[in-house]
């Protein structure tokens, strides 16, 4: 089997694994929709008070909310993607089996996470987004080009999101337990991805800083590309740069971990 087909099979396996839990998916759609409705009303009140906050009008703010709900599970914003399994395998020592496989560790987990993200997008993300588009005024492009650019940013966002979580998960090789880092992942993910408030509405220097952190590649960039608020090529470059940097850091840490750390087990 060619190595391309191997990773494709891993991705397809992850897709099917998540697709098995249908009731959980429906429940997730419901929850994301409820949260979307609550957030939309608060954002509308905020934009009512201060029109054009962060350069968005009301319809754009609404679009941002529903995109956030759509990508929440897709990009595992607060964790719970491939890194959760990876941490558990490191903790139990099962990672030794993974290291024996004639496959690249990082690519293996990336493929799995992409499969998961694709399912979460189709199964869990699209419905709340469509609900939002039907019941609230949204600023969606009518031509094909922005949608095509949007798909590219989503792919890049998925890679950045994975690279970040992979890096964090590897720390369990030294820490032995992922509880603390999971919490850090959750806090940073929710806050710096702009789940609480769009990053372009963050004030002053603080805003300038959060907009160049890797988390900005996750929701803010795809939203801005979709709504034509930023140059798509610039957004691609930003996302790709973080993806490469984080994946490279992940590789470095991975080689350090596999060379120096004794796998747990018994």
């Amino acid at each position, binding site marked *: 089997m060619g190595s391309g087909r191997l990773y494709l099979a891993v991705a397809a396996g992850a897709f099917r694994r998540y697709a098995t839990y249908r*009731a959980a998916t429906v*429940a*997730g759609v419901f929850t994301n929709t409820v949260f979307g409705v609550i957030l939309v009303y608060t954002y509308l009140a*905020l934009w009512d*008070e201060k029109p054009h906050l962060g350069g968005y009008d009301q319809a754009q703010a609404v679009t941002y909310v529903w995109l956030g709900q759509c990508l929440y599970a897709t990009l595992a914003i607060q964790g719970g993607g491939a890194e959760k399994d990876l941490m558990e395998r490191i903790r139990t020592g099962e990672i030794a089996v993974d290291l024996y496989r004639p496959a690249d560790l990082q690519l293996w987990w990336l493929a799995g996470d992409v499969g998961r993200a694709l399912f979460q997008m189709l199964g869990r993300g699209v419905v709340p987004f469509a609900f939002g588009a039907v019941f609230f005024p949204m600023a969606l492009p009518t031509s094909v080009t922005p949608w095509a650019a949007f798909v590219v940013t989503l792919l890049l966002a998925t890679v950045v999101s994975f690279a970040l979580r992979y890096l964090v998960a590897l720390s369990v090789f030294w820490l032995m337990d992922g509880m603390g880092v999971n919490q850090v992942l959750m806090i940073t993910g929710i806050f710096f991805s702009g789940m609480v408030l769009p990053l372009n509405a963050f*004030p002053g220097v603080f805003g300038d800083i959060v907009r160049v952190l890797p988390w900005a590649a996750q929701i803010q960039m795809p939203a801005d590309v979709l709504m034509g608020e930023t140059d798509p090529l610039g957004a691609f470059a930003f996302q790709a740069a973080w993806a490469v940097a984080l994946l490279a850091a992940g590789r470095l840490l991975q080689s350090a971990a596999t060379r120096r750390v004794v796998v747990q087990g018994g």
Partner: protein
Amino acid sequence: MGERSALLEGLRAYRLIAGMWVRSSMTYRTSFIVTVFGNLLVTGLDFVGILLMFSQVDSLGGWSLPEIAFLYGLSVTAFGIADLVLGSMDVLGARMRDGSFDILLVRPAPVLAQVGADRFALRRLGRITQGAVVLGWALVSVDVDWSVPKALLVPVMVVSGAAIFSAVFVAGAAFQIFAQDAAEVQNAFTYGGTTLLQYPPSVFGKDLVRGVTFMLPLAFVNWVPAAYVLDRPYPIELPGWAAFVSPLVAVACCVLAGMAWRVGLRSYRSTGS
């Protein structure tokens, strides 16, 4: 055995099980302290979000920052107490799937007490602490003409609010017996509910406000009484005494949730493996 002794027995079982989980989490003391702190931070993000909003505006839906902090503090403290007491109920679905729920059924202690105390996590004090701090700040900075009834309403809101959220948790647990994998639905009402109540009712559509006032009466956790305390109009017409009925609403919710739990428990079918 009378109702009263059954209740006492349930509380005793709850205390013993919760104590066991506390002792087990205290074994890793540093980890415990770190997770309490983390819990405080995670749950505080919502308020940071509100502060960020108020760095751009002076009011939201006509309510000032101290007023929204008042709503936030009440909502989060009440929810935090319910979350500490019954918050582990979302593992019920997993317990039924792997069959370990059956073990709880054969133990000589009320099932609800066992389920409630399951994985009792003292780290959840983080949320209560955070909510109480915001509430404390709101109480000193909010512009209210305090009277005895208004002052009394504050602790009444926290206690009844905690009871209302507890009822939601129990009803959610009963729902899980039927839905199993769909455990996440209850997050929409628990976490979704506390998020909703952090913002003033004037922000939301009237139908939504009507829904959480008359159907799922979350509005009695803080919205309705707080509107009276702050002397703010409530978006829908309510009689004057509505601000004081939170305890009654809480009792009614708990009774209904208890009945739902009994129905759920009676129709439980083991996976059999």
